[in-house]
């Protein structure tokens, strides 16, 4: 079993965070135990061969089942320990905190699996982490990697929506409703008006932005908390969307789902630009993926490099100072919510215009995409670029969950892990604060010692 190895790695991380040098010993011990257990698992025959053989043989023999998970843990542990050596950089603090959240989520998830059924727990967590890698053929791997990416794009958009608003001081829980509105507009334009894809995308963005503006206006003119208005609008939008998409010509009369876009309006689908050929001809691979990444970069540039971003962030950090310096603080808030809404709406378009999924008109709760978006945004350290990675990770384990052995477990174990990760993300501020505190204390202690030394020197 790999359990002892994982325990050792966790000990290593613990010591790394505690700033102890022992961490490397624990890490080494972890690696050693890992190798040994895997070697034992690969069978006596091979083991016999290995003892006499060279080290290169040993590495090639490591094709044991636990390889992926252990690699992930080794890499995670290694990265965290490496980052702990450079604690002063904000980026490395954020990364450490995020990785600790991921690790925490995985460990608790693993414990839950152990409680349900100990024998298959390790395979299950491994399956979740492997996702498309469970397929052995490279072509199917690429195909399912493609499917993961297709769903990563909308998730990333939702995360961008959340983090954009958050940077301007608002918690856009209403991104869920804006996403739903985007889905509604995209599908309605695609199915009812048979509009081309770009019109559908624009309509989705406009619908999301419209909801965002409502929230923003309620905030600036009526002092309604954005979280509260967002929650209300989420449900209102959900019911409206179900109504609109149940209309004739939009809903499939035989099922609760909307009509397949591919059948009635192929122009409504996002163009593929031959990207699908890279991913085992997975039809749903479209320009949505590069588009989402480009949007992430645009958001980063806008927030960090432009006058507009400077104004928005100033408004978010200190509403009064923004007003004092003559920024149009109310306009900025409404504009932020509009942009945030447009991003979420576009996210929905990037999913429903790929033809991979139809809207279920009897759905009774707001889709989790947005709430996952919150997880992604915080896991990504509230950075657009970090969000690209975290979006992929969350989507990766979510889809990985669908491959677990259903005789014991269910696919929701992934949702459990990702919600655990968000929960842990709430502690990110605390972790970073603790790290900064420790650095400060150490600096101060050093300064004090220097002072003492200087004084002692002058005495003599």
């Amino acid at each position, binding site marked *: 079993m790999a359990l002892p190895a994982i325990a050792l790695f966790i000990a290593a991380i613990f010591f790394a965070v505690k700033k102890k040098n022992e961490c490397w010993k624990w890490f080494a011990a972890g690696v050693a135990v890992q190798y040994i257990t895997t070697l034992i698992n690969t069978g006596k025959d091979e083991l016999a061969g290995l003892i006499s053989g060279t080290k290169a043989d040993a590495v090639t023999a490591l094709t044991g089942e636990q390889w992926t998970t252990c690699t992930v843990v080794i890499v995670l542990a290694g990265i965290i320990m490496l980052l702990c050596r450079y604690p002063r950089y904000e980026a490395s603090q954020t990364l450490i905190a995020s990785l600790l959240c991921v690790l925490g989520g995985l460990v608790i998830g693993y414990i839950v699996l152990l409680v349900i059924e100990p024998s298959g727990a390790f395979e299950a967590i491994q399956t979740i982490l492997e996702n498309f890698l469970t397929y052995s053929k490279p072509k199917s791997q690429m195909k399912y990697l493609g499917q993961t990416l297709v769903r990563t794009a909308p998730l990333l958009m939702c995360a961008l929506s959340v983090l954009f608003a958050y940077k301007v001081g608002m*918690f856009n829980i209403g991104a869920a409703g804006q996403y739903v509105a985007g889905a509604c507009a995209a599908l309605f334009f695609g199915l009812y008006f048979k509009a081309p894809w770009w019109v559908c995308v624009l309509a989705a963005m406009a619908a999301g932005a419209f909801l965002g503006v409502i929230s923003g206006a309620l905030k600036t003119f009526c002092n309604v908390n954005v979280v509260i208005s967002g*929650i209300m609008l989420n449900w209102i939008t959900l019911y409206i969307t*179900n109504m609109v998409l149940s209309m004739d010509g939009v809903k499939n009369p035989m099922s609760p789902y909307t009509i397949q876009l591919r059948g009635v309006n192929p122009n409504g689908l996002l163009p593929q630009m031959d990207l699908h050929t890279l991913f085992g001809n997975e039809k749903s691979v479209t320009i949505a993926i590069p588009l989402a990444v480009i949007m992430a970069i645009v958001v980063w540039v806008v927030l960090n490099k432009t006058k507009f971003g400077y104004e928005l962030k100033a408004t978010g950090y200190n509403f009064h100072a923004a007003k004092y310096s003559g920024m149009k603080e109310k306009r900025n808030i409404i504009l932020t919510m509009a942009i945030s809404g447009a991003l979420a709406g576009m996210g929905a378009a990037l999913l429903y215009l790929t033809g991979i999924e139809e809207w279920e008109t009897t759905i009774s709760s707001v889709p989790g995409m947005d709430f996952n978006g*919150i997880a992604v945004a915080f896991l990504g350290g509230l950075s657009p670029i970090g969000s690209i990675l975290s979006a992929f990770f969350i989507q990766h384990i979510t889809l990985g969950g669908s491959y677990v052995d*259903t005789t014991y477990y269910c696919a929701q174990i992934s949702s459990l892990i990702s919600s*655990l990760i968000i929960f842990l993300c709430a*502690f990110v501020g605390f972790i970073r604060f603790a790290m900064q505190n420790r650095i400060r204390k150490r600096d101060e202690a050093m300064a004090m010692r220097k002072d003492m030394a200087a004084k002692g020197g002058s005495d003599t």
Partner: protein
Amino acid sequence: MILLLQYTLLFASVLLLVALGGCFSERSGVINIGLEGIMVIGALGGALVMKYLPVEFGGAPVMILATLIASAAAGMLFSLLLAVAAIHFKADQTITGTAMNMLATAAATVAVKAMNTAASGGHDVSSDIVYTRARDTFIVRFGNFEFNWFMLVALIALIVSYVVLYKMRFGLRLRACGEHPQAADSVGINVYKMRYAGVLASGLLGGIGGIVYITAGVSSWKFENGVAGFGFLALAVMIFGQWKPIKIALAALLFGFFRALGNVYTGFDLLKNLNLPSQIYNMLPYIISLLVLALTSKNSLAPKAEGIPYDKGTR
């Protein structure tokens, strides 16, 4: 008509219980977006008792009491997540609450599915719990009207909440912590303890609210669906009721009425002839609360210190 009254009272009971829970938490200074999640976990706790406790064992009183205790305990346990994160680690209360909502549904689904799978040897992989017989013990029939003991529970909760908040020492101190924790601290009140108490109270009431909700109209529950936004609706009721128990009760009745209308409007010729989709009725409470919020939020009556982690260092 009787059906409408019955559903109104039932839904109002749920909303009242959960909103009162939210009221305790927010009055102590902790925003509780996680009510939805607390309801799910509370419902799970209660449903398990209903499923596994034989009805013959002590009959209705034991069943009702055991269910209540189980859901309250489950809700409180789950609310500890918020308490620890928000009070001890000064985590962002909105993120924590959001995470709790997701966590609750995922955890409940995983747990129920695991149990069903294990019990059936792999045939039943649903997330349903069936509790038909146990549910019957909650109900007393007066002609066509089904009186549910939980309506009484909600009423008692209302009276107790009012008395505790306004007539007792605990309430005075709790409210002080939500308004001005520094002032409370300066007169020797332990703000952290009071906030824990507030959040735990919300877990207790939210948990009970959860079990009342899932047993309101049906005899089995699919935990994958969570509680379909009822926790959020309760949040709206709480704000609508301006964090005051009596006003919350009135708001709960109003919202419960609209919610019930959505369930039974087909029984009224007048409404049926309007031919509105049921979605409209579902939407109404949210639209009304949004409108009212827009009109009344200029001078917010929310506890002043809510959402701000209390740090002993800053005075």
